[in-house]
């Protein structure tokens, strides 16, 4: 009996249906029974690719003897001595001659390459040539072909076209699909698959009892509509996007990308079509009038690591960031290993080095620095207020406008009232006023070294008597260039602190440090206000030259004259965050250095007046330190040296703006009626509210274009310092389709990815969805659709799904609904030994997949089953339990501050991800490291996983809470409790044997804990959630041990 076997695009004619195995997607059959048509695409190209392309492939530079085997022309070319491949004639084909040669000088691949063909591969090659050497393009670079779902012998089994493809293949392989899994298994399977959470027991029972024909579809629709769906879907996308909460290099400081993470969750939940999902993440910023959300979406390509290590060469890392974007984008959307073409032409796929840099050019156009911000987000970044904050912002803006309007209306009234008052005797006797809001220290230095708060400045060197000089009706201290004043308690600021330093000075030398808190050596760590040749310098220094800010006034201070100096720093860590005022007027600053990346706070040094790394010569008075950044109006008030009474004593025309404002301020504060005062005080209060709100608004790193595109050149050997040929943005020619650059920016790339012309995007996307529901993707090498990747097991199904996905408008929920409502998906995962022998990896899909839950789901399920799970979506990442000291032992300056309360029990995708010390529980269960793009995770089975499930407080607490809940419910017996607990965890009834095992254990353990009450107490105290005191500790402990066994069951950590 001869039957025809359809194995992908490969046709076998078999004498008997004796399939022995499926290995790597290949049907393995007894050779003597096989008269097979060899497929070039599936069988021959992989051999050539793996063994020959390195020297005879796309890479021009490495190509030997000018021979190219990755293209038709080369493979069939005439060479001296014959044709490389001579169809139908094995003996005449040089390819085979060389491969089979025993002469080491002739043998291919050369012996020293360490590459060898197996006998099977040699036979395949020879059969292929014998059969006429049919050639075809690599399947993945050819657009998906329309497929008609095949007819099968059992149409009744097929629920949708997926099943037709699968069943036809199974039938031709002589296999039958597995029976449908039972309903309990099914609803648990689909809930875990679609939402990452188990169903409630009540939902299971309802589904089991639901006899309506669309019961399954309704379950699926309910799950797709749940918020948990978006959260679960997001996890794999976060892996792909290398999302994390830290920057990933060296000190691995924090960043804040959770607004992007929440965008992803929301995009899945509102079922944003995949084409838009793509365009917004690649180029949302370049859409016409992009919304805030569309700009946040571009955070995708800012999730790469950022290097803030001192001493790096920024150009080197800027290149790395762009390369990361290229590699990630092409891995995620094209399933290609683009990075292989960075240093040379791709060895296997038609991607030239030049093309690599053409793609590079799309992503090379950001106003970014290779040197990342150490703590926080690196530019370009976006303020990304949450919806509630957006509302508040609008409201405040409105109220500010109103307040300003009222002030404008009432200003004349205020001015005339103040003017009238200023002529009164009261005004001329008015006590003086100074700005005290935010004031930390005020050293008047008028005959005393004591501050207003009683803190003493000491004169250094010791033993010198202070010298005083008269100034403006008071005194000022005279520094001779030798002495200085010190106070250990004042001015302890770091780079996140806002502050203002203010003083009156009369310099008598061009250079000297006025105010500082620094290590007193030249360019020492700390901050200083310094005079250099008459110019005012402000220095914020961690390490001079590469970790510091220096700004300098453009103008020179007049020597020998009193001036008021104020330096304001806004905590932004940028030179633009420093403002210098001379006599109340802001002066232009030249930026000498703007590379601050760590705090300049020095603990061991005092605040100094007149000293730092050099001494000030001249007079100083009225030194004030404010713990906030004063506004220019406020500084203007500080720069008024005259008292209120003095100003009042002058004629109106003799009062300058500052003096008038000082009078107004004093009058409003002390003498105005409530109504007027309210009007004028409302504005600053509102501005403060705005500021406070602004401080709370999260930021997110985003994509942004430079107005003038940065030049992109081919980098020789991929090195940042070896630029070569200039290139323009473009896409790989081998599958460019009808690519046309309309916009000349990333938007072109984004639109090309999701155009029908692109042969890869839809296939790669559906393949990734597919791998969520079965052991592997239809293409097992999710990350590589190139010639080194594995050919699809079901190429027609892959093409059909890819086209269907596009036909339904890239509807992600609909696509997955299609998959999970298929009969293929609903098969039991039971593995017979026959099937296991034939198809151990289940590539043919003759059964359902059985696989361990992912790291996140293992934990989330335990939280959910116990009822501990906190259901809230989004927000900053949280820090659940982790063994103590893990960060501290290898990191330098970050400590893990564990969350408290509800945040301990949030879904695992919200767990704070520090890349260099990733969450241990997640890593133990094979979570991706998030250091680079990952499109499929491994699944291992290790003793460390056993230890974690047995001993980690996460699971112990879940077990205890499960037990506790059971103990608080009515029950006739312990057996009943154990049975119910078993149901709660496994969602099925225990067998008699299972129940017997657990009950016997309970009886034994309850006895042990009765005898050892301390042990019981110790066990039930696991975790931070409370234990009701009414419960018997021994019983609870014994039930906890049983619950712990349940949570460790293979079936419980497995999706069956």
């Amino acid at each position: 009996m001869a039957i025809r076997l359809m194995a992908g695009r490969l046709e076998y004619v078999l004498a008997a249906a004796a399939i022995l195995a499926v290995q790597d997607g290949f049907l393995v059959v007894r050779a003597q029974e096989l008269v097979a048509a060899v497929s070039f695409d599936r069988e021959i190209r992989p051999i050539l690719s793996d063994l020959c392309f390195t020297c005879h492939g796309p890479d021009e530079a490495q190509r030997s003897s000018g021979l190219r085997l990755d293209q038709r022309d080369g493979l069939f070319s005439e060479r001296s001595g014959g044709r490389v491949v001579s169809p139908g004639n094995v003996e005449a084909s040089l390819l085979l001659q060389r491969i089979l040669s025993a002469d080491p000088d002739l043998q291919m691949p050369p012996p020293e390459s360490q590459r060898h063909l197996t006998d099977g591969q040699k036979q395949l090659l020879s059969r292929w040539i014998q059969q006429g050497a049919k050639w075809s393009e690599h399947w993945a670079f050819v657009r998906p072909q329309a497929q008609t779902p095949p007819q099968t012998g059992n149409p009744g089994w097929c629920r949708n076209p997926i099943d037709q493809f699968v069943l036809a293949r199974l039938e031709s392989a002589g296999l039958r699909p597995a029976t449908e899994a039972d309903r309990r298994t099914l609803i648990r399977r689909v809930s875990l698959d679609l939402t990452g959470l188990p169903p409630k027991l009540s939902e299971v029972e309802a589904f089991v009892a639901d006899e309506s024909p669309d019961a399954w579809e309704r379950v699926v629709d309910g799950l797709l509509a749940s918020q948990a769906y978006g959260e679960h879907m997001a996890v794999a996308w976060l892996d792909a996007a290398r999302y994390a909460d830290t920057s990933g290099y060296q000190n691995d400081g924090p960043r804040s990308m959770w607004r992007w993470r929440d965008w992803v969750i929301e995009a899945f939940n509102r079922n944003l079509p995949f084409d838009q999902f793509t365009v917004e993440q690649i180029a949302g910023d370049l859409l016409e009038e992009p919304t805030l959300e569309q700009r946040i979406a571009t955070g995708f390509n800012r999730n790469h690591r950022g290097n803030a290590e001192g001493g790096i060469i920024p150009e080197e890392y800027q290149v790395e960031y762009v390369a990361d974007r290229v590699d990630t984008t092409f891995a995620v959307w094209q399933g290609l290993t683009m990075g292989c073409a960075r240093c040379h032409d791709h060895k296997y796929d038609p991607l030239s080095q030049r093309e690599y840099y053409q793609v590079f050019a799309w992503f090379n156009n950001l106003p970014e620095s290779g040197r990342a911000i150490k703590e926080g987000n690196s530019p370009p970044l976006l303020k990304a207020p949450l919806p509630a904050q957006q509302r508040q912002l609008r409201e405040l803006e409105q109220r500010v406008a109103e307040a300003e309007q009222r002030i404008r209306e009432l200003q004349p009234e205020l001015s005339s009232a103040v003017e009238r008052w200023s002529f009164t005797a009261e005004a001329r006797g008015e006590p003086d006023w100074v700005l005290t809001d935010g004031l930390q220290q005020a050293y008047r230095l008028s005959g005393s070294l004591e501050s207003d708060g009683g803190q003493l400045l000491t004169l250094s060197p010791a033993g010198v008597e202070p010298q005083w000089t008269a100034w403006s009706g008071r005194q000022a201290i005279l520094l001779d260039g030798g002495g200085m004043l010190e106070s250990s308690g004042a001015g302890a600021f770091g780079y996140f602190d806002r502050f203002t330093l203010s003083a009156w000075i009369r310099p008598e030398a061009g250079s000297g440090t006025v105010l500082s808190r620094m290590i007193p050596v030249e360019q020492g760590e700390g901050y200083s206000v310094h005079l250099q040749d008459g110019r005012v310098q402000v220095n914020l220094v961690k390490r001079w030259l590469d970790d510091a800010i220096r700004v300098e006034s453009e103008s020179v201070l007049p020597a020998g004259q009193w001036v008021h100096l104020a330096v304001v720093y806004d905590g932004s860590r940028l030179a633009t965050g420093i403002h210098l005022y001379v006599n109340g007027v802001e002066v232009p600053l030249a930026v000498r250095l703007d590379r601050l990346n760590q705090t300049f706070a020095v603990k061991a040094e005092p605040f100094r007046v007149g000293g730092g790394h050099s001494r000030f010569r001249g007079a100083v008075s009225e030194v004030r330190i404010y713990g906030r950044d004063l506004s220019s109006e406020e500084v203007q008030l500080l720069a008024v040296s005259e008292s209120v009474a003095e100003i009042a004593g002058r004629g109106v025309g003799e009062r300058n703006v500052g003096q008038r404002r000082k009078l107004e301020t004093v009058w409003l504060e002390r003498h105005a009626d409530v109504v007027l005062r309210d009007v004028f005080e409302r504005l600053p209060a509102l501005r403060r509210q705005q500021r406070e709100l602004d401080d709370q608004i999260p930021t997110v790193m985003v994509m942004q274009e430079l107005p003038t595109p940065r030049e992109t050149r081919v980098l020789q050997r991929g090195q940042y310092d070896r630029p070569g040929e200039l290139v323009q943005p473009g896409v790989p020619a081998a599958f460019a389709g009808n690519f046309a650059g309309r916009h000349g920016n990333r938007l072109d790339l984004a639109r090309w990815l999701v155009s029908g012309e692109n042969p890869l995007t839809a296939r790669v996307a559906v393949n990734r969805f597919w791998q969520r529901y079965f052991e592997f993707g239809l293409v097992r090498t999710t990350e590589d659709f190139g010639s080194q990747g594995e050919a699809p097991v079901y190429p027609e199904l892959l093409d059909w799904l890819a086209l269907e996905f596009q036909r339904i408008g890239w509807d992600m929920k609909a696509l997955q609904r299609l998959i999970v409502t298929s009969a293929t998906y609903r098969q039991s995962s039971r593995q017979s030994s026959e099937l296991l022998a034939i198809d151990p990896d289940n590539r043919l899909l003759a059964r359902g997949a059985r696989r361990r839950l992912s790291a996140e789901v293992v934990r989330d399920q335990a939280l959910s089953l116990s009822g501990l799970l906190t259901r809230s979506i989004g927000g900053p990442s949280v820090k659940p339990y982790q063994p103590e000291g893990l960060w501290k032992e290898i990191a330098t300056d970050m400590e893990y501050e564990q969350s408290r309360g509800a945040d301990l029990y949030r879904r695992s995708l919200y767990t704070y991800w520090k890349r260099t010390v990733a969450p241990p529980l997640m890593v133990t269960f094979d979570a991706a490291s998030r250091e680079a793009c990952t499109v499929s995770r491994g699944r291992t089975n290790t003793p460390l996983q056993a230890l974690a499930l047995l001993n980690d407080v996460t699971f112990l607490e879940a077990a205890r809470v499960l037990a506790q809940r059971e103990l608080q419910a009515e029950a006739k017996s312990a057996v009943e409790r154990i049975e119910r607990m078993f149901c709660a965890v496994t969602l099925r009834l225990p067998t008699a044997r299972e129940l017997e095992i657990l009950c016997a254990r309970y009886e034994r353990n309850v006895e042990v804990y009765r005898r050892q009450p301390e042990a019981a107490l110790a066990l039930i105290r696991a975790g931070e959630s409370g234990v009701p005191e009414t419960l018997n500790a021994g019983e609870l402990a014994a039930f906890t041990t049983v619950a712990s066994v349940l949570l460790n069951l293979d079936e419980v950590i497995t999706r069956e």
Partner: protein
Amino acid sequence: MSGTIEQHVLSGRRGFLGRGAGGLGLAALGGLLGGECVAEQGAVGGAFPHAAPRAKRVIFLFQSGAPSQLDLFDYKPRLLGLRGTELPESVRQGQRLTGMTSSQSSFPVAPTMFRFRQRGSSGSWVSELLPRTASIADRLCFVRSMHTEAINHDPAITFFQTGAQLAGRPSLGSWLSYGLGSESSDLPAFVAMISGAGDQPLYDRLWGSGFLPTRYAGVKFRSQGDPVLYLSNPAGISREIRRGLLDDLQSLNGLRLEQTGDPEITTRIAQYEMAYRMQSSVPELTDLSGESAGTFELYGEEARRPGSFAWNCLMARRLCERGVRFVQLFHRGWDQHLELPKNIALQCRMTDQPTAALVTDLEQRGLLEDTVVVWGGEFGRTVYCQGKLTVSDYGRDHHPRCFTMWLAGAGIRGGQMWGETDDFSYNIVRDPVHVHDLNATLLHLLGIDHLRLTYKFQGRHYRLTDVHGNVSSGLLL
């Protein structure tokens, strides 16, 4: 051909350990974290080891932060006369510097403050900072011509441990676990331990498995809490109760195996048993009560303090005794940009004795014959001063172009100084050894051809040594 196919068929999935690699050691030897080799590609290149190994184990004493070769091993007497003079451009040759010093206005030569002496019969130069190391100089092969590519800590140390500057590749130890498996049935094949403090952090990736399955990752043994994460039973669960619970778990899982036919459950059952065994093997390992007074004389009293470098050295020996293949120590604190003389002396005081003790101890126990010990950091330090050069103080910036490491033990030609640098310890003038060469050499000692230990990922056959590396036979016996 049909025979091969039959083999494939008969081997099935799970029973097929080390598929395609004909007896790859990995999981077959019950690599602790290996468990079974599930649907896994075997390494290309045939069975490991490729050749009779000279060494069975490696202890890597990594000195994180980069110790100064100029103050420890690379003796440059001529520099004394050049103190404070500008580093000649002919030496620097426009090579790149880090951003910390590249805009320094001058590059004054800073000779070491420490005295050097030739040691042992081999006459290797060692500084006075390391008297104990000096005393075993005849065992050591000093490689003064090490060089690397990166000039910053993170990429440089990542390069050292994984062969690439960027994250994502498997670490040396995980390649070894993947290639050779474990010799121990109840301890991991690859253990990492940390000591010291300082400016420079470490990263999980340094003992991570990169794109290899996570089971090949190093297990970090900690000095705080459980030596291995989640090792101890929680308070209230005694060993007896644990045993009982495990018995039930295994019975119940066994029932499920009958139901589902999934051989993965068999593996799981085995891994829970392994976990249980570890619960006694690891505490036994870290229990030093059986160590003699002589041990602590040798390693110093610090060896009693968990988390100290000395303790870790002693642990390294104990791990070796128990068949652990790769012990990776990281000692932090060598990043001496400023105040180098003071800080390096402190570091040396902390590490010198236990380092020498470990080599001596291994030798006395006959373990040095098949154990390689490696000492060194991620790069060297500059001859020119960073910051202010004063009578008693100087600092040194990162220097990738030459630095010194030493090796000892199995297959190593001890008592020699390999390679040579110029008078400024700036460029190598003879016998350079690149990081890839060192890694190739270490693999070679373990019987592995570094060209053939590969793993296919993203379509490419990756190696620890990327596309580089040569065995440095000059270091070998």
